[in-house]
């Protein structure tokens, strides 16, 4: 027999009170920790996904959409830009790397991105097996893609038009897997990388097919065909260009110049993501406030539960005093009940937050093909836990303070 056993037996004596207090407190702990971890994980994931990209240039439209589509690959592109512009831009002395990308097709929901060898360098992706793309219609798979689709070197597949999985608009030309990247935990893990020519060839072939079906154009002669080929270089398009600068000067001047002087737009991923986090931050704050309100309510529940216990079991406590227990001992016994409830709530809350996060992550993954790596921000978690513990401890102490003023003689006389 000891104080802890007596506290535990007291708790189990009225399990409903204990359950309600523990349940509500663990929900608020789960919400507070969960939202904090999710917010940190998403921000880290997005910032990590930027790689070395300092600027994106694409068709006019929403700059955030351009960043989300071309950098994080979770939105649709704003349109296409001329490949000639890419070539011009890459000659700018302030630019270190200008990597064109072109996409619009997928295989089983995974985007096929046509680019140069510089694309993998942006994400520091290294080959796990095979080789880099050297010819049209060769692909290197991001690590997640290879794992999820079970593709191996030498496998072939047909791509579908558009960015979502479908079998209706399949292209005729098949891609061959020539390499698989090591995991980078960046966006490239869930992409299928090929060169720009593959994308152009697949779409050129499609256009040709459409022309064959058109009876009028079928009549056209060789001369016209030749004329089209000579203009082909000028007509080639890409979706966007991913740029890194030699110095910060480029970052300061180039976006403004591009936006003002060309029919393209330049977007800064870091700036756009910060703006995005400001918007989502409002939601995070709202959920955090709701969680704090639940925390307050659950602490009030603990307070009421313990206070009621102290009042209802005043005679029991007075009896313990007649048995030789000191005020401090009674204080410890009742405080231990509160601390047990708090500890169980913290453990359950942590488990609930992990389960909830796994659920949200799986939803996120199925919707955006985006695997979120959970990031625990220890200082933030410690700070939140401290706030929870302090509020709960204050309610525990307030509830059991009457023990110190207890008049045993009066309680025992009144009960006669």
């Amino acid at each position, binding site marked *: *027999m*000891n104080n802890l056993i*007596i506290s535990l*037996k*007291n708790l*189990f*004596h009225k399990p409903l009170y204990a359950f309600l207090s523990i349940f509500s407190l663990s929900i608020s702990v789960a919400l507070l920790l969960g939202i904090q971890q999710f917010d940190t994980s998403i921000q880290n994931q997005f910032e990590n996904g930027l790689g070395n990209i300092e600027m994106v240039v694409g068709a006019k439209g929403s700059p955030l959409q351009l960043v989300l589509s071309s950098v994080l690959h979770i939105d649709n592109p704003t349109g296409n830009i001329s490949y000639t512009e890419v070539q011009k831009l890459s000659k700018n002395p302030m630019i270190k790397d200008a990597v064109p990308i072109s996409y619009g097709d997928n295989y089983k929901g995974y985007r096929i991105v046509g680019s140069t060898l510089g694309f993998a360098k942006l994400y520091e992706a290294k080959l796990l097996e095979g080789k880099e793309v050297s010819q049209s219609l060769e692909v290197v798979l991001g690590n997640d893609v290879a794992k999820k689709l079970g593709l191996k070197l030498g496998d072939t597949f047909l791509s579908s038009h558009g960015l979502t999985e479908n079998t209706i608009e399949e292209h005729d030309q098949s891609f061959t897997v020539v390499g698989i990247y090591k995991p980078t935990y960046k966006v490239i893990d869930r992409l299928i990388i090929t060169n720009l020519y593959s994308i152009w060839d697949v779409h050129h072939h499609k256009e040709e097919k459409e022309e064959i079906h058109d009876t009028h154009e079928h009549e056209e002669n060789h001369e016209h065909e030749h004329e089209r080929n000579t203009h082909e270089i000028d007509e080639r398009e890409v979706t966007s260009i991913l740029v890194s600068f030699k110095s910060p000067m480029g970052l300061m001047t180039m976006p403004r110049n591009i936006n003002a002087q060309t029919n393209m737009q330049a977007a800064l991923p870091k700036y756009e993501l910060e703006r995005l986090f400001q918007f989502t931050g409002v939601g995070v704050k709202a959920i955090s406030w709701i969680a704090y309100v639940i925390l307050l309510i659950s602490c009030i529940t603990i307070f009421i539960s313990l206070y009621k216990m102290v009042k209802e*079991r005043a*005679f*029991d406590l007075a*009896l*313990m*005093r*007649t*048995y*030789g*227990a*000191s*005020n401090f*001992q009674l204080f410890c016994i009742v405080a231990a009940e509160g601390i047990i409830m708090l500890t169980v709530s913290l453990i359950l809350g942590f488990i609930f937050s992990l389960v909830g996060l796994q659920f949200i992550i799986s939803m996120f993954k199925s919707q955006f093909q985006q695997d979120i790596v959970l990031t625990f921000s220890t200082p933030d978690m410690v700070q939140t836990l401290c706030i929870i513990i302090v509020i709960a401890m204050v309610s525990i102490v307030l509830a059991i303070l009457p023990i110190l003023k207890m008049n*045993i*003689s009066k309680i*025992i*006389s009144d*009960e*006669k």
Partner: protein
Amino acid sequence: MVQTDQLEFQYKNKEQLFRFPNITLKEQEHLVILGKSGIGKTTLLHLLAGLQKSTAGSINIDEVLINSLSHSQLDTFRGQHIGLVFQKSHAITSLNVYDNLKARLFFSKKAIDEKNIAALLKQLDLIENKKSKINELSVGQLQRLGIAMAVIHQPKLILADEPTSSLDDENCEIVMNLLQQQAKQHQANLVVITHDARIKSSFKNVMTL
């Protein structure tokens, strides 16, 4: 041994001052204190138990002046040397019969002797109920448990507050016999306060307030 000297008590914010006659009990002597309601019987018992501190005078129990003890010393002394029996018997409701007796020993900082507990429960006909919850006990069983709680730690002084006032004659006799038997067995002084004149004949020492 119990000895009080010019004991006085006054409740806070109340004018009435209780003055109690001196008590002197040698080892294993028993005393019944009779008196009508409101005369201060329970107050005297609480003073003897150290639940209240006297305004004046002294209480000496087994060579210890209990009114000179600090709060924590008094808690320890009460736990180890005094056993209390109430008119309506109570025990810790969240614990079963057996755990109540263990808790009683734990609070009085005495070693938990399971054989001793079992023997006492057997003697008081509670052995079948050792795992019973408090609210499952009958009034008689509860009364016997109250006596067990008062003697399990082998006190020097057993104080009983109106232990028989709500009982019929037969049960009154049973309870008094049990109390006296336990006091004798544990070589303790027994002080009973009551307005129940039926038990007067059971005691050699009678004091009327």
